[in-house]
């Protein structure tokens, strides 16, 4: 392995840090926008921008430095109280934060941004503080100027002799500076003769240890200019009297040089009064460096670990099966040892999955930007709220959710919310509200996008679907069925394709993206009150809690998350509605009965339902189905193996898994089965792959 370039590593880590800082900035701005008056909030924003600037400077990212500097200046004006943030300022701050994040990204990839864009946002920012900032600008203009102590490469005629008279004041010692060190640094700039003037030194009994009595005269022949010699004393400027005069070009021991003051003292042992108590080198234990809260790990390594754990789960299942087949009693050591092993496997698996899990916060912040940009572009005022920012979801899931969510947020602003005048007419506030929330619910992640708009205009949706030939005209459709039309390919409610949401991407694409993550999407819409899109996702793409069942001798797995309960049927529970349509009567509700064996083509429908087992399946929107199976074997975790790459999409089947006995079992997609069996709205089948 080649040793990685440390600077490249630091650079990579800088961009990671930028992401965190941008997140902190975003949080701070949101808090400010929400009326947070805590001075620490603006400080946090300021520091975030400031740190980005500091790091960017180190890597010579000039555009980033320049922008961050101006931004910081305006934030500083708020920090100092010279500028009070109002709504417009906040909007601009958000815009600037977005822009800063673009700059970070473009700096990372090396793509330049439009210079006009940079200037434009800069001008906007500056217009807020006006001349005050410009003046300050001059004082604090960010120039990478470091103390110049590099005295080796000055191109000056040699042999200039200077006389430096240096008299420290008592304050110099309080700053931690030390005349001896300064004189040594000075002496290294050329050939020097140093004499100490101790004439002001009082008698010992009159000596004030906090006072300074000594001064030094240094005759130095050097190639360095007087300015550079002065700069050596930069740190003690104002803490001493310093006179530097050019004596001549002659060597320092020329007779016309004024004689050095008497009482020359060897510089190696300066008798400067020490304002400090004696320094004691402590040999005490050094504190251990505080451990970092995080470790950066290559994603590939984690993925490898996830795969290995998957194999471990399969292996453990096989082992359990062998043990069971060996006919050992349940109190044998092997059995109890195996139970412990299973528990550990499960713990390892959970822990590994947690490594991949990330809070959805960063993605939510991106969405808040989308909402801002969209609302700005079409002139609707939107209050964008997020809930459950800290809900953790698999990293891959988060990444792959970004596109569908972006589209849905745009839709919500563009189509979901009514125009300003319509809102006012409906007695609502002018500002629309969009809420993006995330939560864990029974082993899945639920992400919801709600608007408080007018709700889905169902007659219009139906009419459009008919016009486009997506459904035969004159059908009697339920509200739910009409809502589902939105997911049909080629559907767009806006007669005039708008600039934002009408980019040729429809809700059908959104849905297949979500389905490819093993997720579901459903709509709830109340006329006049708003629409909620609800996305339900598995916590991970690698394993699944499943119910192992058999149908006609075939072993299958049904995702546990979809199963509400299992029921043992009695013959009279089943009501026949038509030749192929049966329902069962459960607790005063009729639920369609679907025979899994028939659906998958394993066998024909049974004639007798007495004692048969059904799984009650529930969809996110509450629609239910009873799935008829032959036997229930067990409940267990299975490792998902994708089928799509090899077989393409298989109707009603989500993926496959390997069971303990080494056999392959198909994982059923109950919701697809439900849709298929009920034949509602003719929804086409979509990709149902869970994992690759």
């Amino acid at each position: 392995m080649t040793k990685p370039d440390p600077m490249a590593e630091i650079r990579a880590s800088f961009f990671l840090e930028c992401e965190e800082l941008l997140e902190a900035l975003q949080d701070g701005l949101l808090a400010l926008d929400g009326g947070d008056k805590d001075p620490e909030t603006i400080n946090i924003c300021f520091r975030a921008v400031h740190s980005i600037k500091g790091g960017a400077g180190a890597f010579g990212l000039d555009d980033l430095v320049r922008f961050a500097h101006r931004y910081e200046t305006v934030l500083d004006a708020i920090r100092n109280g010279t500028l009070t943030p109002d709504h417009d300022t906040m909007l601009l701050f958000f815009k600037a934060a977005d822009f800063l994040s673009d700059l970070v990204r473009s700096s990372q990839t090396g793509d330049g941004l439009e210079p006009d864009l940079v200037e434009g946002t800069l001008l906007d920012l500056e217009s807020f503080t006006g001349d005050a900032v410009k003046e300050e600008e001059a004082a604090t203009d960010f120039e990478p100027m470091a103390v110049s102590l590099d005295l080796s490469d000055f191109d000056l005629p040699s042999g200039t002799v200077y006389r430096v008279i240096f008299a420290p004041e008592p304050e110099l010692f309080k700053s931690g500076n030390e005349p001896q060190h300064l004189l040594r640094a000075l002496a290294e700039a050329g050939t020097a003769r140093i004499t100490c003037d101790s004439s002001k030194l009082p008698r010992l009994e009159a000596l004030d240890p906090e006072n300074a009595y000594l001064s030094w005269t240094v005759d130095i022949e050097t190639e360095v200019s007087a300015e550079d010699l002065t700069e050596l004393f930069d740190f003690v400027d104002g803490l001493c009297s310093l006179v530097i005069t050019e004596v001549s070009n002659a060597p320092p021991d020329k007779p016309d040089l004024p004689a050095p003051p008497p009482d020359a003292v060897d510089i190696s042992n300066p008798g400067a009064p020490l304002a400090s108590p004696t320094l004691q080198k402590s040999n005490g234990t050094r504190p251990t460096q505080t451990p970092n809260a995080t470790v950066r790990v290559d994603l590939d390594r984690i993925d490898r670990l996830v795969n290995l754990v998957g194999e471990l789960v399969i292996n453990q299942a096989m082992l359990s099966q062998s043990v069971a087949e060996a006919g050992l009693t349940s109190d044998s050591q092997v059995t109890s040892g195996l139970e412990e092993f299973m528990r550990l496997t499960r713990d390892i698996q959970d822990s590994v999955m947690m490594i991949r899990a990330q809070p959805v916060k960063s993605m939510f912040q991106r969405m808040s930007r989308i909402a801002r940009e969209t609302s700005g572009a079409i002139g609707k005022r939107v209050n964008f709220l997020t809930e459950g920012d800290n809900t953790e979801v698999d990293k891959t899931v988060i990444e792959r959710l970004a596109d569908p969510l972006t589209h849905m947020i745009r839709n919500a602003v563009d189509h979901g919310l009514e125009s300003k005048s319509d809102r006012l007419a409906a007695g609502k506030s002018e500002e629309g509200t969009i809420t993006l929330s995330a939560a864990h619910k029974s082993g899945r992640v639920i992400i919801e996008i709600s608007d408080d708009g007018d709700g889905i205009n169902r007659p219009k949706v139906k009419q459009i679907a008919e016009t486009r030939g997506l459904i035969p005209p004159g059908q009697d459709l339920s509200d739910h069925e009409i809502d589902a039309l939105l997911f049909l390919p080629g559907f767009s409610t806006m007669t005039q394709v708008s600039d934002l949401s009408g980019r040729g991407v429809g809700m059908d694409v959104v849905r297949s993206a979500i389905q490819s993550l093993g997720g579901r999407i459903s709509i709830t819409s109340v006329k006049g009150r708003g629409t909620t899109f609800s996305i339900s996702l598995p916590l991970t793409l690698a394993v699944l809690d499943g119910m192992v069942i058999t149908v006609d001798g075939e072993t299958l797995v049904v995702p546990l998350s979809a199963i509400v309960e299992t029921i043992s049927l009695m013959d009279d529970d089943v009501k026949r509605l038509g030749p192929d349509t049966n329902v069962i009567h459960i607790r005063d509700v009729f639920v369609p009965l679907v025979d899994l064996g028939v659906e998958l083509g394993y066998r024909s429908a049974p004639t007798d339902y007495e004692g048969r087992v059904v799984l009650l399946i529930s969809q996110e929107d509450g629609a239910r189905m009873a799935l008829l199976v032959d036997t229930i074997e067990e409940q267990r975790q299975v490792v998902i193996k994708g089928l799509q790459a090899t077989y393409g999409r298989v109707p009603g089947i989500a993926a496959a898994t390997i069971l303990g006995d080494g056999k392959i079992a198909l994982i059923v997609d109950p919701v697809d089965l439900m849709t298929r069996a009920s034949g509602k709205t003719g929804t086409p089948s979509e990709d149902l792959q869970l994992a690759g």
Partner: protein
Amino acid sequence: MSLSILAIDDSRTIRDMLTLALTQAGFDPTVAEDGIHGLEVLDGMQPDAIITDINMPRLDGFGFIEAVREQPQHQTTPILVLTTESAPELKARARAAGATGWIVKPFDPAKLVKALNMVAGTGTA
């Protein structure tokens, strides 16, 4: 001579860079994330010099320097302020708090090392 240096900055990037620059110069760096953390780390060590950022959460650089100077054993420990601003009033404030000198970010490692050597009295050569 291997100087022991306490470097305090809230930016991980700058801490990494300081660690790299100081280690390459043969120094022995210890890092801390803010003023409070810096004081905690300082408790029990006697660094040859301290480098600190100004803008930090919990306790900023000025506060940190003042707190360090209150401790008798650190009254003469050289403290360099690491700052992105070269504004005179910042220098004045840093000095009033008890800073020995300042380094402007982005720092040149060679110059940082020279400045450290100078304030710690180990020679610039």
